[in-house]
């Protein structure tokens, strides 16, 4: 396959960059390892500071990409290597098998309806279940199911139900080569692991959840249809946020600030306040970094709504016999004697780590910083990487919120199209 630009990652950064290139007439191939485009944003409930519905913002971009004549999307595809060849690049990718014939599938979901086996749903971050063969989520693009072959019983119920005979149990991975004029890395982030900090329960306390799980509880098509805590379904009336639970902490290898956690905690607290008006919500923080446009006002609104902000270092989280989390804090204001506070539900405001560290596995020969994010050597051209012709945008270059990500993605598209112009001369 040949294209002008290869965009790796189809989250909001990749989608925006692909559109800005395609709208200039460039041929774009957009690759994502997940079965659907949309990245992390499609999974969120609402976004700060406007409290817009995340899906409502992401799905039009996804639809534009899907219908754009200049964009070819390869989902469920891993990038194995990217090698510079002169000014161009040769990428080797592997299309993972969905076990579905894409040319025959019409997205009717019969297979999903007939499948008899349930699995933990990774889009609901373990809170919900999905069938072994299923379309990842309601607005997935493409609307094609994935069959989890590791869990599949091979009972054939899906194949029998499929009106177009699209199930293919023997499907193999397909290796492709892509000849691209330029590459954009929009590979996004993961959150720091739940079990990184032993002192916070090591990921084993059922009512100490990750911010993604909280997003799913708050999302319009979430797993429980409302906010309930995992251990017993109780509707929580006392909820706590532990800020810097995965950042500004050298002991877990993440000494940097993850930039978005203050804001997403405040956002989630506001949404919780809206859906559980009697609940007490406390945010234990070190600094509240509400730095962006509209962010400070958002923070002040949250205070006015009665959300409690307590400057305190959380030393330890344990639980009692009913799985009520107990937070041990050292207040930094007022008394400094350690206190133990019991809550119904605790959300760890985990930080961001890069989703893809390309030079670690030898996939692409470019430099990363000490923080493992892609190194961007030029201040005035912040999307350039150490490899000419390869540009990076979004969380790939460091923790980032959505607004800055979208701006960077457009900027990367500009650099990429100028690179193509220069190469053409």
């Amino acid at each position, binding site marked *: 396959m040949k294209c002008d630009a290869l965009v790796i990652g189809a989250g909001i950064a990749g989608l925006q960059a692909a559109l800005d290139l395609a709208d200039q007439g460039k041929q774009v191939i957009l690759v994502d390892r997940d079965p659907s485009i949309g990245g992390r944003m499609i999974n969120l409930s609402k976004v700060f500071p406007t409290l*817009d*519905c995340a*899906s*409502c913002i992401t*799905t*039009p971009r996804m639809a534009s990409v899907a219908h754009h004549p200049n964009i070819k999307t390869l989902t469920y595809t891993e990038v194995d290597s990217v090698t510079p060849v002169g000014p161009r690049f040769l990428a080797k990718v592997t299309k993972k098998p969905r076990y579905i014939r894409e040319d025959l599938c019409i997205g009717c979901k019969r297979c999903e309806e007939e499948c008899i086996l349930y699995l933990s749903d990774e889009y609901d971050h373990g809170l919900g279940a999905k069938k072994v063969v299923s379309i990842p989520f*309601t*607005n997935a693009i493409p609307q094609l199911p994935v069959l989890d072959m590791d869990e599949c019983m091979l009972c054939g119920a899906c194949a029998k139900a499929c009106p177009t005979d699209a199930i293919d149990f023997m499907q193999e991975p397909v290796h492709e080569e892509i000849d691209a004029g330029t590459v954009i890395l929009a590979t996004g982030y993961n959150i720091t692991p739940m079990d990184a900090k032993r002192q916070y329960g090591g990921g084993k306390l059922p009512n100490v959840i990750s911010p993604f799980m909280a997003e799913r509880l708050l999302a*319009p*098509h979430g797993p429980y249809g409302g906010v309930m805590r995992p251990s017993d379904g109780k509707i929580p009336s006392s909820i706590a946020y532990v800020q810097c639970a995965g950042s500004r902490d050298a002991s877990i290898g993440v000494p940097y600030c993850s930039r978005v956690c203050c804001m997403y905690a405040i956002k989630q607290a506001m949404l919780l306040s809206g859906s559980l008006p009697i609940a007490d919500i406390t945010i234990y923080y070190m600094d509240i970094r509400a730095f962006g446009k509209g962010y400070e006002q958002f923070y002040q609104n949250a205070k006015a709504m009665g959300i409690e902000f307590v400057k305190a270092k959380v030393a330890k989280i344990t639980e009692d016999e009913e799985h009520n989390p107990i937070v041990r804090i050292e207040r930094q204001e007022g008394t400094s004697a350690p206190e133990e506070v019991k809550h119904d539900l605790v959300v760890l405001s985990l930080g961001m780590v890069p989703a893809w560290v390309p030079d670690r596995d030898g996939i692409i020969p470019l430099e990363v910083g000490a923080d493992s994010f892609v190194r961007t050597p030029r201040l005035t051209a912040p999307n350039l990487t150490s490899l000419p012709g390869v540009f990076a945008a979004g969380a790939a270059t460091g923790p980032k919120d959505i607004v800055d990500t979208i701006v960077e993605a457009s900027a990367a598209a500009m650099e990429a199209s100028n690179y193509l112009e220069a190469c053409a001369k």
Partner: protein
Amino acid sequence: MKDPNDYKILILTTNISSYPGANTVGQARLQYSPATSIIRVPDPVVFPDDFYLRAFEKGVDGIIIMSSGSDCPYEGAYRRLSERVARVYKEMEVRGLDRSKLKLTTICTVCKAAFLKEIKDMQDNLAKLEQKVAS
């Protein structure tokens, strides 16, 4: 008494917001009455006062305007729409039509529950009105 599922409800939706919202309801296979009909427009501000009155004359039982609310990209459209609806209410009163037969609301692209609730509310409301007339 009519089955509430038989009330002819006209739903006006927007291209960017509530029409995709109706699609989301379908993607989730949630069920509602087939006596509903959905029309889509760039923005419901386009309909003049007499559009609504004419629709009632022609046999529509209830009209739900599902606007884009704060997602609306058109300056001043929502304000004009609400002012218009207020005027239409007055005209409906003159014609003996209860104002609850026309509802202005906001539905986003994923507001499944809200979408269904609007239809159910309209149906319940129309049933109540029918009862009032009967009694």
